[in-house]
């Protein structure tokens, strides 16, 4: 090691820190923008959002000079924003809660008993998971017409609940719960559902969290589904509506974007530990082989 080792570590640290700051910059810019008064925004970003003849070049500002909550005040007065926010929350929370539950159940079904038929079915789920949204959107459209859910919240929520991604991740994770533990509990007289809730789920807590978080983040940003399946503009979530707000009123847009980010930020802070643990061990990594 010695001196060259130290220099190398210093270089790597500086490099990675700069890169990390670059990764964080978009979030910081959004939050900083949300606390700037109108004039300051016009001064910094006037060349983009303001008058096209304003030729002041753009200045990225990471710290507002005269912080104010003026934008948040305007946002609070916007009833349609609050309504959209609730629509987004309704869709995303229902998909996350029911989707994770359905996935966990299915994963347990796949893990508990293996047969040729089930292996093939699981392969089917994996193929479905890799299908881009646009492929599954076409079936979703026809089914929503057929079930009469087209243009209602259920048209977006139901297909989201049956996403194959959670089934895949949780099955891979649950395969590592020791069979002996389950069998021992079964011999003690525990029913299958009790085995699932009392033995299996506690051991897979991180993976369940990871699936719930990824599902939430994904659906909080839903765009394609609402565009096709919801013709009624007022039923569309904030993820589609927000960009329209940006065009109309740049002053409020930063606050709107920042508030929209908050539920995800809270969940990330709260669940990051689980995410790190839960998704890590999900595929067959080398750790499996050591045990």
């Amino acid at each position, binding site marked *: 090691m010695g001196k060259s080792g130290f220099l*190398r*570590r210093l270089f790597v*640290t500086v490099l*990675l820190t700069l*890169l*990390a*700051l670059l990764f*964080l910059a*978009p*979030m910081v*810019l*959004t939050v900083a923008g949300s606390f700037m008064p109108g004039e300051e925004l016009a001064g910094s*970003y006037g060349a*983009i959002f303001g008058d096209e003849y304003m030729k002041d070049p*753009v200045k990225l500002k990471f710290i507002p000079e005269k912080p104010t909550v003026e934008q948040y005040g305007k946002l609070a007065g916007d009833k349609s924003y609050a309504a959209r926010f609730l629509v987004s929350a309704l869709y995303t929370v229902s998909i996350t809660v029911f989707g994770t539950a*359905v996935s966990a*159940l299915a994963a347990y*079904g796949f893990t*508990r*008993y293996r047969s040729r038929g*089930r292996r093939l*079915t699981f392969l089917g789920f*994996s193929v479905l*998971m*890799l*299908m*881009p949204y*646009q492929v*599954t959107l*076409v*079936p979703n459209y026809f*089914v929503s017409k057929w079930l009469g859910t087209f243009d209602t919240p259920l048209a977006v929520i139901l*297909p989201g609940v*049956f996403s194959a*991604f959670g*089934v895949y991740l949780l099955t891979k994770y649950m395969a590592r719960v020791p069979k002996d533990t389950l069998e021992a509990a*079964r011999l003690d007289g525990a029913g*299958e559902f009790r085995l*699932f809730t009392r033995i299996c789920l506690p051991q897979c807590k991180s993976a369940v969290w990871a699936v719930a978080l990824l599902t939430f983040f994904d659906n909080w940003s839903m*765009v*394609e589904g609402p565009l096709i399946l919801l013709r009624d503009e007022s039923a569309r979530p*904030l*993820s589609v509506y*927000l*960009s329209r707000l*940006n065009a109309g009123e740049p002053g409020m847009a*930063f606050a709107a*974007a920042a508030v*929209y980010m908050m539920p*995800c930020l809270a969940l990330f802070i709260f669940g*990051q530990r689980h*995410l*790190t643990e839960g*998704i*890590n061990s999900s*595929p*067959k*990594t*080398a750790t499996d*082989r050591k045990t």
Partner: protein
Amino acid sequence: MRNGLSRGTRFRSLLFLFPSLLGTLIFFVIPFGMIIYYALVSKPVGGEFVGFSNFIRLFHNRAFLVGFRNTAVLCVSAVTLSVMLALGLSVLLENALPARGALRTAFLCPMFVPAASVVLVWTVLFHHNGAINAALAAIGLDPVDWFHTWWGSLMVLLMYLWRNLGLYVLLFTSALSAVPEELIGMANLDGAGPVRRFFTVKLPYLAPTMVFVVMLSLIYSMKIFREVYLLTGSYPYDHLYLLQHFMNNTFMSMDYPKLCAAALVLLTVMGAITAAVFWLEDRVGRDLENG
């Protein structure tokens, strides 16, 4: 091997699968049958069988070809760069750096930022009068037209890497930490340098994670459509026009035979890719067991 489980367990574990299977059948599997039918008829209601003419029409459609090309280029470059860059960053993070955990978290943060929130910042950066062009002008370079030239593809790729790289780094770093110490020690005794140590000792252990990252990057490269759509709307210029734009626009014009033909083509291509990925996963698993 699992015949030790009673018939009852077999049946009850099937019950766990039931909700997920039912939903998947209704929302994805059965409607695929409808898609095949629609792709082969001239119009959805009262149409006659026209064989492959919808597919021929599709392959003569310029919008489809452009979208297909751009999406294919995006997927291939996203997958390649994801694996290479994430692996590189993880190896750098293996150094004993101060605040390693914080760096990893910083890279991970973009994954929770909703697409609609960050679009505002992308506009500020990539707009013709935006921050990047201002910076280029400051060092005497010509501005880049991100929205109307091939630079657009680079912009999409950058947005994709920003959002997803952290997750892959997380997966790789934990796989790297699972490489048994003894093996590294043995390689050291054999006099292997850091480069050889990486390729002969560590890389085989990373293979399963690599396959998982390939799968994830395929899934997430399709989702970057959201950002592109929110930035540029339904009809962007050629280099930003993705297959998803084509599908959405065909939805809007209600040309279902063409839409279903496109969905089937996409299904076939993705099916082939999926088969390749699973073949790879299978092989990698077997190599590790034997090796």
